[in-house]
């Protein structure tokens, strides 16, 4: 078993376990912390897949900024396990069964295909480095980049307008 495979299985177990704990934990704060674990595991997967820039961005943006935002909102609302919305037990079982059947359908549909047997050969690719990505981003994709800045500005203005107190 090579080091890549060991890392793959470890990170996969971490991601799946973190995701399960995130869905099942009663306290929303613990949910956020488990989601941070999942994001770190996914960043590890990105490094394994030669996407170093995305790994760093994932940690900074998701595990850092967005999760702090979530935690801030949860703390602001003063939520804990006590005032967790009361839910039907059958609803939980039905949701778990629905999610499990969705996964079953996906796996069954993808299992038979032959082209999926392609191997991910490990080579020192340059595709994920910030140099190549930046070159592509600022030549071919410069218009979507600028448009996304406008999107960010409008999202910021929209968040301020929505969150403004009083009419």
């Amino acid at each position, binding site marked *: 078993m090579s080091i890549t495979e060991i890392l*793959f299985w470890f990170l996969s177990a971490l991601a799946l376990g973190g*995701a399960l704990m*995130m*869905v099942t934990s009663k306290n929303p704060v613990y*949910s*956020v912390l488990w*989601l941070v674990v*999942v994001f770190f595991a*996914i960043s590890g*997967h*990105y490094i394994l*897949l*030669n*996407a170093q*820039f*995305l790994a760093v*961005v*994932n940690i900074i943006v*998701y595990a850092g*900024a*967005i999760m702090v*935002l*979530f935690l801030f909102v949860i703390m*602001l*609302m003063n*939520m804990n396990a006590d005032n*967790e*919305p*009361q*839910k039907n037990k059958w*609803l*939980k079982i039905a*949701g778990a069964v*629905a*999610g499990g059947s*969705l*996964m079953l359908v*996906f*796996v069954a549909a*993808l*299992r038979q295909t032959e082209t*999926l*047997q*392609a*191997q*991910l*050969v*490990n080579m020192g*690719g340059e*595709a994920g480095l910030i140099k190549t*990505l930046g070159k*592509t981003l600022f030549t071919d994709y410069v218009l979507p980049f600028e448009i996304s800045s406008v*999107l*960010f500005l409008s*999202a910021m203005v*929209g*968040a301020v307008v*929505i*969150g403004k*107190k009083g009419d």
Partner: protein
Amino acid sequence: MPINYYIILAVALFSIGVAGVLTRRNAIIIFMCVELMLNAVNLLLVAFSKMHAANAMAVNPSAIVGTEAQLFVFFIMVVAAAEVSVGLAIIVMMYRNIHSVDVNFLNRLKH
């Protein structure tokens, strides 16, 4: 590493996200499950880009391919960040009005 493993991992993460959306009644947790689903799809995109790059490099070793899919993931992250800011503002607004984030109480559009 066969790509099947990555596909099954992404599918499992996506299904956990779907199950979380269906089972949890807390609006913030539902939002976090949506983030989890986005990340599962991102992981799948990166895995496919790696496979594509490996195939293209076998033909032409000096080619640099696979950057497009990673940029796509980058743009997905950008849009997700914008979505989170607006969505959390909406949730805070909702909490201010009805003092709860339980989606069972959010059926006002029905009446």
